[in-house]
């Protein structure tokens, strides 16, 4: 596969079991009419190499905000986020995000959208960028769709462009913000089935994935670890290691037991 060697560079530098993402006692207050309104209180979590960590909680609890703090887009009131040993102080090259509503530029083709994700990479020539973008689209299953505009793609394909854009820059950490919830059931089902193998694989540079979702079955299907948040102000009410073997059978009793366990923490 094109670009394979480049993609794998970051893979080798980290040993199995290394903590990739650390969220360390993070608090966030909104300031509305002078009074601080706590949104997140004392949230801590870690994601180790090759782990997919899912964050869930009641709607509006601030789980998407937590994801934005991890990405560096939102600054916490106190606490820290680290990727390996460096503190996250703002958006950076090795963290990328996939949005619920895709957030593609409708006036740019699929390839141009992926290239936009590489704008900050001054270390790459235009030709290298093109190659990277093409190979990311191919990994996401969109070979042949380079010059199609988002408006002509289906929802599932748009999200694949979103994934390709996030993958193109060889991120260590991939953040997924409800990535399947704007898709119809069939499409979501298919993309979910591909996603784990696609992201946690030696083909990509991704070392940890953090998924925010309200869909408990989806979480049990995908996650190695589940973090359950309370309603506002959100704090961690439970942490579960899901040790079901893959591929996971959604009809099995074991699967349902895991789903129940998360539900009982949620309520």
């Amino acid at each position, binding site marked *: 596969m094109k670009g394979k060697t480049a993609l794998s560079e970051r893979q080798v530098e980290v040993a199995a079991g290394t903590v990739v993402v650390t969220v360390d006692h993070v608090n966030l207050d909104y300031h509305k009419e002078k009074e601080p309104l706590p949104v997140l209180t004392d949230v801590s979590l870690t994601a180790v190499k090759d782990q997919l960590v899912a964050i869930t909680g009641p709607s509006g609890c601030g789980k998407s905000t937590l994801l934005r703090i991890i*990405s560096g887009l939102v600054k916490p009131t106190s606490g820290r986020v680290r990727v390996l040993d460096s503190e996250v102080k703002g958006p950076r090259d090795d963290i990328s995000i996939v949005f619920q509503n895709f957030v593609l*530029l409708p*006036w740019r083709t699929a390839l141009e959208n992926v290239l936009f994700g590489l704008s900050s990479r001054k270390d790459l020539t235009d030709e290298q960028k093109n190659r990277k973008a093409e190979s990311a689209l191919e990994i996401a299953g969109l070979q042949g769709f380079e010059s199609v505009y988002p408006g002509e793609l289906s929802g599932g394909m748009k999200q694949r462009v979103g994934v390709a854009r996030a993958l193109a820059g060889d991120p260590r950490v991939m953040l997924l913000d409800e990535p399947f919830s704007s898709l119809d059931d069939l499409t979501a089902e298919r993309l979910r089935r591909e996603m784990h193998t696609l992201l946690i694989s030696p083909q990509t540079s991704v070392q940890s994935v953090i998924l925010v979702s309200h869909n408990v079955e989806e979480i049990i299907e995908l996650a190695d670890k589940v973090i359950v948040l309370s309603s506002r102000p959100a704090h961690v009410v439970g942490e579960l290691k899901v040790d079901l073997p893959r591929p996971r059978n959604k009809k099995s009793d074991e699967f349902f037991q895991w789903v129940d366990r998360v539900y009982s923490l949620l309520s």
Partner: protein
Amino acid sequence: MTLDFGLVALDIISSWIRMILALVLSILFALAVGIWAARSKRAEAVILPLLDIFQSIPILAFFPFVIFAIYGLPGSVLHNFVGANLAVIILIFTSMSWNIAFGVYEAVKAIPQDYIDLLSVTQASSWQRIRSLYIPASMSRVAYNTQISWAVGLFFLAASEIISEGQGGAGEQIPIPYGIGVGAAAFPPASADYALLIAGIVVAVVIWRYLFLRAFALWSEKFKMMEEPRDVHRDPITRFYSYVNHRAVSKLFLIAHGMGVSRFTSTITRFRRGLKYAVLIFLLLIALLLLSALSHAGGVNLGGLPSWSEVVTDELGILYALGVSFVRVWYVYAICVAIGLPLGIAISLNFKLYDAVSPVLEVISSVPAPILLPVIVLIPVLGGSSEAVAALVIMLAIIWYIIFNVMAGVRTLPADLKDLPNVYRTGRLAAWRNVYLPGALTGFVTGSITAIGGAWNALIIAEYFNPLGSSVPLTEVGSGIGKAIAIATNSADYLTLTLAVASMTALIVGFNLVVWRRLYNRVTKRYTYNR
């Protein structure tokens, strides 16, 4: 120096009474025509293209005809105070009603079929249907579009009052004794009274807008067919003000709809119908011009038609003047784009700046540009250049359309999209090129259509301004169609006036249909953000 508070108050009150009467007339007309067009296929086929044309013609240019037809006909029973006011009110009405009518049409069209079926089942009479369904369903659009129409109407009110002042030069004063336009023309520029008038207008606009128009809009919300999620926990005052802030820009965004865009989103078939009218007008105009040329060549005088050379090459010749004005409109527009586009984007990207600046811009923009002309003439850096004065007046009349539409366009982009350059740390250039400029494009084109339309209207005041009918006008450009219209009006030369207005209208309508609409359709196809 003493300030004449009473006179200023009288000016403002008189103008407001005219505006309110015109508004009531507009709403009644809009309800009748809008409902009719929405409920009858045959009416729809005729009314929509007509509204379409009426909305894009330079209404102000038709004012002299309106005055003549209502007030000016010798021996008319309306050759008095009532007739003169009626003429002004009708002009304002013309500028206000199309926009509201489109709103009603769209609202009634959007009523779910179930509701209409329900009334059929209960065998409601036509009047019952209108009263219990069509009018309530239109109410929120009427309120919304009224806010837009008001801003547009104010411009035409001021301009028409000023023009009616100027027409008195021929010896007889048109009996419009009070009004903001009258005041602006009559008070010495840079006088305390003039300053008081401007201040009074600002206060009146703010009070009216925030107390009446907004209250109307809030009240009309209860007629909304669909319940929208609303934050009920805040106290009414906070709710009111957050509402004001949110709507401030979106409302001005819709000014564009007021002057000719809502129908741009509609179908190609309407485009084709509209084109027929434009072609018809063009043909008529060319026939007239050919006739005049032929009559000149044959040495025949056909009822005082201007000769070919007069039409084409004379400084006040219609085609020559039209060309000069065309250039003027476009270069002023270009300046407005250069300022308004980046400014609008920059403001909307910064929440704090946006909240601070938008109410200020709103108030400044609501002072009708013609009122400011007497003081613009005195601005020293313009060096008394009539070209610069004209450019500035046009600019003040139209730049808001660009700024506000761009602002609204950028504001409606989802937050995640605006964050995207941040996520990928793309740098400013890439962010503007890939996200902000394309994201603003639909609003920008919408605003441009409106701005160009507004510029043609503003020409009539900006190119030639002689409110007191003196021998030396306050400002006068070398050539221009607005000046031609103004002079022809003052000298009651209705033939030249007709030709000038017709050629200007044909140019604008044709340009709208052939250029703007295609551009708009192209742009909305790709540059509208929908996930």
